[in-house]
């Protein structure tokens, strides 16, 4: 169940989210962004799914926007892989009508090996 911004605190860890990066998902991504064809999953396709999965974990109001993003890629992911993303609240800021969240995400493969880490800062519409 999605958690409201007000209920989140730094350190809050969300339940893991699994997703499969099958050929259809990868082809749709490659076409959408005009990426070069690769024999593996483009790392931003892995990240795109991880970030989209946050929508099911947090009550993100319409109008939420992305302010900053960091990534560290650790290994290539074969097409058809199932990966797991675990997200955690690193920072929460609410001041003068501005509400921000910084979330850390760790994506691992089926063997539990690191695939990529990310840190997203998002700005939610004022209350």
């Amino acid at each position: 169940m999605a958690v409201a911004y007000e209920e989140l605190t730094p350190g809050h860890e969300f339940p893991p989210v699994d997703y499969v990066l099958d050929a259809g998902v990868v082809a749709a991504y490659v076409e959408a962004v005009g990426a070069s064809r690769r024999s593996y999953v483009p790392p931003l396709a892995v990240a795109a799914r991880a970030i989209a999965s946050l929508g099911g974990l947090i009550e993100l109001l319409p109008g939420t926007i992305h302010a900053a993003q960091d990534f560290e890629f650790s290994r290539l992911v074969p097409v058809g892989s199932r990966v797991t993303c675990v997200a955690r609240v690193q920072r929460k800021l609410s001041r003068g009508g501005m509400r921000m969240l910084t979330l850390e995400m760790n994506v691992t493969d089926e063997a539990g090996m690191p695939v990529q880490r990310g840190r997203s800062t998002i700005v939610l519409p004022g209350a």
Partner: protein
Amino acid sequence: MEFTAREGAVLPAFVRQVTQPDIKRYADASGDYNPIHIDEAFAATTPLKGTIAHGMLVLAFVSEMLARAFGEAWDESGRLSVKFRSPARPGDTLTVSGQVDSLLSESDIVWATCSLWCRNQADEVVVSGEARVRVPASL
């Protein structure tokens, strides 16, 4: 043409126009249906006054420029840190560019640190940041 990472080298630019159908395609591909990207009526009521591209769509263009310059090394071991400075809107033509600022050896690995920008047709900075990528040690 293959890119050779040397300090001061300019990365081959990546240019792409963003359209509303592109944004919808990205929403379908990523599963991110935030209405600020796809609902023109809703977006018109927000301070942004219209739809904007997903930040991750713009980052895909940044990553594509780096993948074309550095190949598999980018996808396998790249580091990226960016800030979204202004929104990319439907109709914008985005140009991603960058340059190699430094080459640093660490335990038999050479890392190239690059500064990056993505600008729109009005030369406004949409994204700025830094990337780090492994390059061949012979450089």
